[in-house]
């Protein structure tokens, strides 16, 4: 990564740290959720953008992470930060296991299977035999964590920094993985499945692992989300959650890490604005943006940014008054 990019990132990080002190607690909470979504979108993007496996059911892994955290905190009194690794492992395993039969499904069929998962999940969560854990239709309420070591922060601000730290960690790990052999294998499988196999890549293992890691990311996001919102209930994890994630990666930009951030900002803040118009407006806007991006900007915002930067760079290089 170039020096300029590192400086830019540092500036961004500084701005992100300053944010909670500059805006209201509610705004900070919204940005916390945006961070949560960015981790979830990173997970989905790994699977769909980089590895080409279409998932219309990632809300399920988000839900599993959320419920894991909620149950551990509510029923076992576990501290909030300890639930994250457990939620991660649970979702990693769940994703890997789901990825195994999914190996045999391509494109449309995988989309169909994951769509079915996404649609039927709330019903599964409401199943009365599981009620004593899941809280049934009412769900589970959990407490907002307090800042540790008596730091002079509001709980909302603390939660923001906590989430920010986790997000930075997850992004760095993802960036590392996607740049390495695993990432190249993932993309090779997406673009030329059979050639990848012929080259000696264990496509089955890579695909299942990708599913697992992708689910893990989304599950961690779910856990963080549950902690932030302090509440989990079956109907918040319906098919539309999975579709929101899809909107996020399409708008943000497929196969792009920065796309996860653009997308998260989009799906977090657009409904807030659109809700003013009408209850139906956010989804109508999502739908229109989906179409718009597919037809006009298939590379998403990240792609557009990349192209704009490339054009600026070219202009600077071609400018006659360039200083050496």
């Amino acid at each position: 990564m170039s020096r300029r990019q590192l400086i830019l990132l540092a500036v961004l990080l500084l701005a992100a740290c300053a944010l909670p002190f500059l805006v209201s607690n509610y705004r900070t909470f919204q940005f916390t959720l945006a961070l949560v979504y960015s981790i979830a979108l990173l997970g989905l993007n790994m699977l769909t953008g980089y590895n080409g496996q279409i998932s219309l059911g990632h809300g399920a892994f988000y839900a599993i992470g959320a419920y894991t955290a909620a149950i551990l905190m509510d029923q076992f009194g576990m501290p909030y930060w300890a639930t994250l690794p457990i939620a991660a492992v649970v979702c990693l395993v769940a994703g890997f296991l789901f990825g195994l039969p999914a190996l045999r499904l391509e494109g449309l069929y995988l989309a169909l299977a994951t769509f079915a998962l996404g649609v039927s999940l709330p019903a599964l969560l409401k199943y009365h035999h599981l009620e004593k854990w899941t809280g049934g239709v009412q769900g589970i309420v959990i407490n907002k964590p307090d800042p540790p070591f008596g730091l002079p922060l509001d709980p909302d601000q603390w939660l923001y920094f906590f989430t920010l730290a986790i997000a930075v960690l997850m992004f760095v790990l993802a960036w590392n993985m996607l740049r390495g052999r695993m990432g190249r294998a993932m993309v090779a499988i997406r673009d030329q499945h059979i050639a990848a196999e012929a080259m000696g890549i264990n496509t089955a293992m890579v695909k299942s692992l990708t599913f697992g890691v992708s689910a893990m990311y989304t599950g961690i996001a779910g856990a963080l989300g549950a902690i932030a919102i302090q509440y989990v209930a079956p109907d918040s994890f319906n098919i539309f959650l999975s579709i929101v994630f899809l909107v996020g990666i399409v708008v943000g930009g497929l196969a792009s890490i920065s796309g996860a951030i653009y997308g998260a900002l989009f799906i977090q803040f657009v409904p807030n604005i659109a809700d003013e118009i009408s209850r139906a407006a956010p989804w109508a806007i999502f739908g229109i943006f989906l179409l718009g991006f597919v037809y006009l900007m298939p590379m998403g915002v990240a792609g557009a940014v990349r192209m704009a930067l490339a054009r600026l760079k070219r202009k600077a290089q071609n400018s006659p008054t360039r200083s050496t």
Partner: protein
Amino acid sequence: MEAFLHQVLAGLATGGIYASLALALVMIYQATHLVNFAQGEMAMFATYFAWSLINAGMPYWPAFLLTVVFAFVLGVVIERVIIRPVENAPVLAVVVVFIALLVILNSVTGWIFSYTIKTFPSPFPAEPIFGQYITSHQGGAIGVTLVVLLLLYLFFRYTPLGLALRAAAQNPDSARLVGIRVGWMLALGWGLAAAIGGVAGMMVAPIVFLDPNMMGGVLLYAFAAALVGGIDNPAGAVFGGFLVGVLENVLGAFVIGNELKLAVALVLIIGVLVVRPSGFFGKVLVTRV
């Protein structure tokens, strides 16, 4: 025993609705190799159209027919305007477009008609006229389904247009060589599929009540039915629909409880896709490397 019979018959009634929607899915799949994720919302939108006609005072059957025409036109327009540009695009783009369609139809309906649940009338009397094991609406729904299926069969089998549609779906290149306008055949197929969906929507609405999200579960059962029967086999879709309907009701009532009924669809879908993707009657596809 009586309870079992009751569940089976109720299952056949809803099964007919699943069969119709599954048939719509298969028709589009046969022609385009695409799964229309928005089929349910298209049906729902048509049903709301019917509701507004009836609400404005139109008697049921004229409203029914007008809605079928409306749904047909809607299907044609959607194919020509929204689907055609992405016909040959990568799978993800197509899936996204279908999801966008789903979302737009859902939200536009909610915006125009609000999200409050409405009742939708049944053209069949309240008293049971088909015996004591089945409500009139259930019996009527089976009847309407069978009539629609019969009309479709006759159309495809015995009319030149139906033959052209079949040809265009099976072999678009050869179809062009005999002068068939394949693009318009696709639009026609979409129109027919949408019309069938509209009928399904109007048959299911009295049971589940009218609300923008009413077709979600139905669509899932229809997917299961289409896969079980073989995603490229129309007769299989019909068989699958009735089978899924009966299974759902019988398992729900006697084995797993009503809450997990939707899980039946999920298990069927994943099961079929993993174990036998071509379903009972579909063709096993061999992909050339």
